[in-house]
């Protein structure tokens, strides 16, 4: 059967344009999956590397549940038989002038050498002899620091340089190599205590211990002891929802990609029915014809998959940066390095291309196996019994949708069940494509015949009569547009909910030090409280704790101030909920309540400085600051149980009755700037939060664009296949008196018609998808309620995309029409 294989391969070369479109279609589908998968992998592996570097070879750390720890503890720990090595650490951040925050580690170089030997070896043991005096200054000069070489290069700093920070000027003693990727400054711990005003205190102690159980039994009360594994688990838990989100986007890419590859593979088979019929009439066995098709499909799978792997690898470099930036904004600093090119990526691309191609070709190949040769030899035939077939598909669609509903209802078991339900839902609605085409065809014919005369009318008939080809392309495009509308509506609703939340909770006139990296001195807080015209100052403190072994947050606020000046979004009750908070109760965020199944009236037990404390839960409130949940308590309660007076930021409320509000605001700004504390007005803070929010969805937006590109190739492939199949028919149209322009017009109307049907379906499906994302997926992933808010934009974007993509996809076939049909061409090939 060499000749058959040759015939098939030559067909690919002969139909170069179609073959290229099909290859690009598969490549884009595979690229979407590989790109997303690789960037998620990069982020997670870089995260492990960063943790490894900063924790060095320490096995545990010990710290207070909240706030700094007395350095006197070091002397006690040295005598503990379970402790082999220890190293005190001050872990803070400074803000560079006109730049981002940078982590500052205050370490004792000599104690640290057993924990982080790389740093010690590189910068304290093997120093070049000529710079010894610089090294000496590291201990003697309070402002002397070691700066990581990347940051030094970025800031154009060299040993001996001086640079400004929010904690004053620093002198560069030397640079060091930092494999974690996070910009880092090292300071001697004694100097760090002076810089950060932590006399006699440190943030934590890194330990190498030999007996975990024994050590815990002696130190667990009043301290938080965390093993390296626990630390990794904690950070992984912080990333859990984000990771889920990335996985969901990868799956979504896979779904659209498979749809497109299915589309492509199906075209490869249906457009060759006649050749298959001829072969059968000559005596080729079914399996031989199928084998020839499979060879062709696999060739596409291999080439498209390989090309997709290359595209995906390139795409992953772009996505990795976005993912890293999102994680850094939301969770902790992470600068993931893109995954290097590997044969495994190539293999994954090829496997994906082949599997999806085989899946896509399965149905038409089975049809080809079952069909009598005489029917196959007729080649392209009108879609007979369309209504009946479309009805059957729609009935199957109803069954699939019911299955999807069951999955969505049971999504409380795991969010993956919800994801499965979402994909089944998309599959189910796709099966309604035929019926929708039948249903809207009369209206479309009316519209197109008025807009384009007879060619418009014929275009609609062609869409309807070639549903074997057009329906899958319409469905693929519809899914992509629905994703665009669904994700867009979800993001807009989320944005709307966030704005509502900010307007109810963040009502201060000014916010001091909101970046989370510079603490506010307590005396400044006291100073502001006593300022004339100030109605109240809310001292905000946020600490990460573990509750039932899972990371969550405690937030300390001034309950009476918030009661007076804000109107929280309460799940139940109103501002009277603050009364018990003033007395020592706590309120919890909705995400905390859902995550830990804690209700109003329950109590939460947390490890305080002096042992475990039970806090009664008085109310639940809507919150979007963290999906990990937070427990909010009055500052006095927090200090009582955690002995931590640190203030992360201040919310300043001007007395509503004070005559000169502007003057008060200006004065607060002046005083804060005098202490190097960043200040933001309410609107500035709101826009910063919204900008963080928008950055967070950069990956999602990229996937929306990718889905559209993938779908574009789908619709372009469909139009091109129709064009190739109907070359002779076009000749007949010419013979009947059609101009080339009219034939081109008909092709354009077909493209627009398919785009319009896809868009019409996507308005309903996209809205339903948005509701599923909001009510099921987000709720399960992030444990917070997003309020659905209708906005026109996602629909407008989808409409423009649909029309633009349909016209774009029609351009090449139209060009071919003009190029191929100057004369009548009816003859057979």
């Amino acid at each position: 059967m060499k000749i058959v294989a040759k015939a098939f391969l030559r067909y690919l070369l002969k139909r170069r344009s179609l073959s290229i479109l099909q290859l690009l279609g598969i490549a884009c589908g595979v690229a979407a999956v590989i790109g997303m998968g690789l960037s998620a992998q990069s982020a997670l592996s870089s995260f492990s590397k960063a943790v490894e570097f900063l924790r060095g070879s320490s096995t545990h750390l010990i710290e207070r549940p909240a706030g700094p720890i007395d350095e006197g503890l070091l002397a006690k720990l040295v005598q503990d038989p379970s402790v082999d090595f220890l190293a005190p650490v001050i872990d803070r951040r400074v803000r560079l002038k006109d730049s981002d925050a940078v982590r500052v580690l205050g370490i004792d170089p000599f104690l640290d050498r057993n924990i982080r030997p790389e740093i010690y070896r590189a910068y304290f043991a093997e120093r070049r002899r000529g710079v010894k005096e610089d090294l000496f200054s590291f201990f003697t000069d309070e402002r002397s620091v070691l700066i990581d070489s990347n940051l030094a290069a970025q800031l154009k700093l060299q040993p001996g340089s001086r640079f400004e920070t929010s904690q004053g000027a620093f002198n560069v003693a030397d640079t060091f190599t930092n494999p974690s990727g996070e910009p880092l400054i090292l300071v001697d711990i004694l100097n760090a205590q002076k810089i950060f005003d932590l006399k006699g205190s440190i943030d934590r102690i890194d330990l190498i211990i030999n007996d975990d159980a024994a050590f815990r039994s002696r130190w667990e009360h009043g301290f938080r002891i965390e093993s390296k594994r626990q630390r990794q688990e904690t950070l992984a838990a912080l990333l859990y929802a984000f990771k889920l989100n990335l996985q969901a986007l990868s799956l979504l890419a896979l779904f659209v990609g498979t749809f497109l590859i299915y589309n492509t593979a199906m075209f490869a088979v249906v457009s060759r029915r006649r050749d298959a019929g001829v072969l059968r009439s000559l005596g080729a066995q079914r399996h031989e014809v199928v084998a020839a098709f499979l060879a062709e499909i696999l060739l596409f799978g291999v080439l498209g998959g390989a090309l997709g792997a290359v595209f995906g690898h390139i795409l992953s470099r772009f996505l990795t940066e976005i993912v890293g930036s999102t994680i850094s904004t939301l969770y902790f600093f992470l600068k993931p390095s893109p995954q290097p090119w590997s044969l495994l990526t190539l293999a994954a691309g090829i496997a994906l291309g082949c599997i999806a191609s085989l899946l896509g070709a399965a149905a038409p190949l089975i049809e080809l196996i079952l069909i009598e040769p005489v029917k196959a030899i007729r080649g392209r035939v009108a879609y007979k019994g369309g209504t009946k077939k479309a009805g059957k598909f729609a009935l199957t669609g109803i069954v699939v949708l019911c299955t999807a509903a069951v999955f969505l209802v049971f999504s409380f078991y795991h969010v993956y069940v919800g994801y499965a339900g979402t994909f089944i839902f998309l599959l189910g609605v796709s099966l309604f494509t035929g019926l929708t085409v039948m249903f809207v065809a009369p209206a479309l014919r009316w519209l197109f015949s008025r807009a384009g005369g007879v060619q418009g009318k014929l275009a609609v008939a062609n869409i309807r009569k070639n549903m074997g080809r057009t329906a899958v392309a319409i469905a693929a495009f519809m899914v992509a547009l629905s994703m665009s509308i669904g994700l867009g509506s979800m993001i807009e609703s989320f944005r709307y909910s966030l704005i509502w939340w900010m307007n109810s909770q963040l009502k201060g006139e000014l916010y001091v030090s909101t970046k989370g990296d510079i603490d506010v001195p307590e005396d400044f807080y006291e100073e502001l409280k006593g300022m004339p015209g100030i109605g109240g100052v809310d001292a905000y403190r946020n600490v990460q704790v573990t509750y039932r072994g899972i990371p969550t947050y405690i937030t300390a606020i001034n309950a009476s101030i918030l009661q007076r000046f804000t109107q929280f979004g309460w799940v139940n009750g109103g501002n009277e909920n603050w009364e018990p908070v003033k007395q020592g109760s706590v309120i919890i965020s909705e995400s905390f309540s859902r995550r830990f199944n804690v209700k109003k009236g329950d109590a939460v037990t947390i490890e305080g400085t002096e042992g475990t404390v039970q806090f009664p839960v008085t109310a639940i409130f809507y919150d979007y600051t963290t999906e990990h949940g937070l427990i909010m308590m009055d500052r006095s309660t927090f200090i009582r149980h955690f002995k931590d007076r640190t203030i992360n930021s201040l919310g300043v409320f001007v007395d509503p009755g004070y005559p000169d509000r502007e003057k008060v605001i200006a004065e607060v700004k002046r005083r804060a700037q005098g202490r190097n504390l960043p200040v933001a007005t309410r609107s500035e803070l709101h826009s910063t939060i919204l900008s963080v929010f928008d950055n967070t969805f950069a990956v999602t937006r990229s996937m929306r664009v990718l889905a559209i590109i993938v779908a574009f190739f789908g619709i372009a492939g469909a139009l091109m296949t129709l064009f190739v199949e109907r070359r002779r028919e076009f000749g007949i149209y010419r013979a009947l008196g059609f101009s080339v322009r009219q034939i081109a017009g008909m092709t354009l109307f077909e493209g627009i018609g398919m785009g319009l049907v896809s868009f019409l379906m996507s308005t309903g499906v996209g809205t339903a998808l948005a509701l599923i994302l909001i009510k099921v997926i987000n709720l399960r992933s992030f444990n917070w309620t997003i309020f659905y808010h209708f906005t026109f934009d996602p629909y407008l974007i989808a409409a423009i995309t649909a029309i633009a993509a349909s016209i774009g996809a029609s351009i090449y076939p139209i060009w071919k029409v003009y190029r191929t049909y100057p004369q009548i061409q009816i003859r057979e090939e």
Partner: protein
Amino acid sequence: MFFLGMQPVIRVTDLWKYYGDDEQGEPALRGTSLEVSAGDIVALFGKSGSGKTTLLNLLAGLDRPTRGRIEIEGQDLEALGERGRTEFRRSRLGFVFQFFNLLPTLTAFENVFLSLELAGRPDPAAARAALASVGLAGKENRYPHELSGGEQQRVAIARALVKKPSIILADEPTGNLDTHTGTHILDLLVDQCRQTQTTLIMVSHAMITCQYARRILQMEDGVVMEDRSCEAPGP
């Protein structure tokens, strides 16, 4: 007419064919019967829609009858199963179509050679000889679109004959050609079949076909009848 002493190579008994899923509507064949001897050259005339092509497709095993029996060389075509019918087409049957049905991506030589390859006798010399015998020597490497209609039909005839089948079914082999070329094609086809004692059934509208056939059949409303008159059939 059944020639005494000759074994029928095709025997059709009470053959019915309905299109569609059920036996509703007008049948394409309504209980027709027929016997054709080995080496016979038969012309089958009939109006459009009378069931000629349907009968040919059923004889080739390309389609399946609703009812009735087809025996080829004594074997029930239905009982052969799909595999057996394919094997029959591959080795014992040649088919010539009105619209040639050459594979567009294969050259003239490759189209003919494919037939031999399928029959398990991949002999390039035989393929070249077959093309030469239909007057296409020197045009072996041309693709179908580089050949005229008559030349394409010659390739189709060479493709059908090269494997030396016992039966050739030709569905309006001249229907797509001008009279001169059509005559040429019929000369060629019939001559080759006579030389090789191949049974030939030609469906045709062209009266000239009468001159080539030893037996004329007329198809009317799905039933085959003997016709000695050879008068002009319908359009």
